[in-house]
């Protein structure tokens, strides 16, 4: 039973600012992903929650109890390491029992045995208890790591890229398995990953980090549909987002953005007028952006088309095609249905619906809305 609250958490390693002023709340029983490229401070954040690193400043609360001075062992967290950290000199059984046996007072042998067998059942290791950990496959090592963190019944689970070494099929299986386990034990989980697909698929809320700074914290839908800044827009989504430099004009009551290069129509962004006009530096340039999935493809002669672009490449993915297009000096991407696959060199009309278009301030990178 625990809510995690980070308050202005900061960690510096000498000159390196690993984590900067990070504040967020993970509600009890929720599944939180810390997402970002390597070096963004997500593992450092995790280590501070576990107690393996002391924060430079800021505080961590578990259910309103400040814990940053507690030893890792007193925090009641379970930690799954990226490289599993399995004690290879022990059997699977002893690995699972380790967390219980180092407890003081040491639990009775029967109790340890009962817990070990229960956990082994949950993670699917019941048949492998007597095997030496050194002889396990990577997949089984992962299960041992998961089981070992579960046995102490932690209030909080911390998982540091636990699936990054697994093969694709087993990774997909473990993703579902982990969600099941999380649902079963109902505890708070914090999951570190650099894979946005993993984060989007598993987490209730995602904290996107870059260079030690929290970029956005929200549900997968929020991150996908309303990215707070250009970094998040770029990082979330399996097909790279489209970006085009644009100019802002006013036409009576209407506020319009128009791509600055090439021939194209204007996009009505009147709903964002206040934000655009009130941006920090009124002279800063703007970029419009739209998800490839939200680009509508129409015949090139359609009056609806915002702009026309030439097909450069088609990536068939089975369920859909990713169509790479060339618009002036810019590469654009759109997602099309396989039934109407265009040919390379075809001209397509693309519609940018205003509701799907994001406008970013180039000076700050922030979304204007």
């Amino acid at each position: 039973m625990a809510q995690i609250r980070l308050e202005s958490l900061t960690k510096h390693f000498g000159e390196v600012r690993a984590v900067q002023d990070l504040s967020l709340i993970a509600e009890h029983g929720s599944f939180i992903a810390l997402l970002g490229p390597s070096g963004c401070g997500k593992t450092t954040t995790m280590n501070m929650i576990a107690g393996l690193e002391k924060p430079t400043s800021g505080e961590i609360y578990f259910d309103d109890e400040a814990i940053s001075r507690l030893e890792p062992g007193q925090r009641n967290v379970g930690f799954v390491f990226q490289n599993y950290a399995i004690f290879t000199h022990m059997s699977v059984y002893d690995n699972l029992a380790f967390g219980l046996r180092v407890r003081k007072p040491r639990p009775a042998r029967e109790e340890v045995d009962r817990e070990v067998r229960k956990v082994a059942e949950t993670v699917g290791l019941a048949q492998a208890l007597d095997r030496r950990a050194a002889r396990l496959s990577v997949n089984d090592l992962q299960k041992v790591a998961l089981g070992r963190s579960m046995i102490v019944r932690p209030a909080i689970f911390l998982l540091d890229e636990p699936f990054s070494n697994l093969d694709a099929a087993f990774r997909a299986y473990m993703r579902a398995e982990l969600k099941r386990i999380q649902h079963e034990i109902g505890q708070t989980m914090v999951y570190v990953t650099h894979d946005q697909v993993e984060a989007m698929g598993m987490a209730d809320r995602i904290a996107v980090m870059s260079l030690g700074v929290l970029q956005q914290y929200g549900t997968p839908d929020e991150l996908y549909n309303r990215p707070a800044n250009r970094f998040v827009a770029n990082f979330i989504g399996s097909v790279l987002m489209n970006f085009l430099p644009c100019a802002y004009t006013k036409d009576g009551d209407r506020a319009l953005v128009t791509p600055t290069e090439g021939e194209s129509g204007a996009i009505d962004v009147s709903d964002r007028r206040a934000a655009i006009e009130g941006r920090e530096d009124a002279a800063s340039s703007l970029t419009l952006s739209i998800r490839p999935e939200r680009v509508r493809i129409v015949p090139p002669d359609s009056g609806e088309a915002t702009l026309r672009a030439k097909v450069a490449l088609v990536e068939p993915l089975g369920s859909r095609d990713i169509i790479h297009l060339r618009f002036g000096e810019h590469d654009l991407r759109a997602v099309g249905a396989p039934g109407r696959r265009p040919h390379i060199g075809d001209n397509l009309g693309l519609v940018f619906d205003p509701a799907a278009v994001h406008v970013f301030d180039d000076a700050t990178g922030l979304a204007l809305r």
Partner: protein
Amino acid sequence: MAAVEETRTTFVAPPASRTPRWLKPTGRILTIVLIGALFAFPLYWVVTMSFKPLPEWNPPGKVYWWPDNPTLENYEKILGISSGEQSVFATGRSRSAVEFLVNSVVAAIGGTILALIVGIFTAYGIARFRAGGRMLPFQILQLRMFPPIAIIIPLLFFYVEIGLWNKEYFGWFNLGLIVLYGAVTFPFVVWLMRSFFQEVPREISEAAIVDGCTQWGAFFKAVLPQVKGGLAATALFVFILNWSDFLIAKVMTQDNNSTAPVYLQSLQGGASGNEYGLQAALACILIIPPAVFGLLIQRYLVRGLTFGAIKR
């Protein structure tokens, strides 16, 4: 038909393959045996010598390649089972070596344990916490960069001054030797164990700490067992060094307080003449402890070599 056959041979046969096929492995084996014999001969000579009676040791004008009248006399004398009266050279010097062997065992094992205890913690500190900065490992190795003989004389004065020279407690516990053996082998322990500890992922100790261990608990329960093989190899290496030391014991001890290698050397020359048979017997006995130790930990040695197999 014949023409076809001939064409084939010209194409297939490599030009220089005149030597018959069977000669190649034979030649190889012969070379191996020859080199092996070269290395094994001194060992053979010592072992056979230890079973030779006095007249066969080194008679003028004759070489005994094999003991004509094999005897256990040398072993009996050196182990004090029978006295040395039969020997024409019998003087006070060819006494039993048991006392010296005991001194050797105590000093070598004591020194090894001391070096291991201090060295392991130092190595872990360096490997895991970068204790002492980047130069510390080199500063420690520096202790071994000059030959021990370079410092043995000042050290001798120092030992005389603090009363550790030739000092044996309880008649078998040579503290001075143990401390020196520990000190001179300590750098090896640090360097060997450091690299073994570096192979253990940091997360191993962190996992134990998250589970509730203290830093010490994590070290003993999680990290140290992972380097068992390396530890065994290091212990054997250091023990052999200490066991075979001559110089330090020669300078720092006298008479009954010496170790077996020093006694071994004293069996040569002087009034007693060269007691080759006794020397050989003692040498053979000296081989036993490291060999037995090596066999006992062989299992771990192999594991020490395959260490790190889990890094996937």
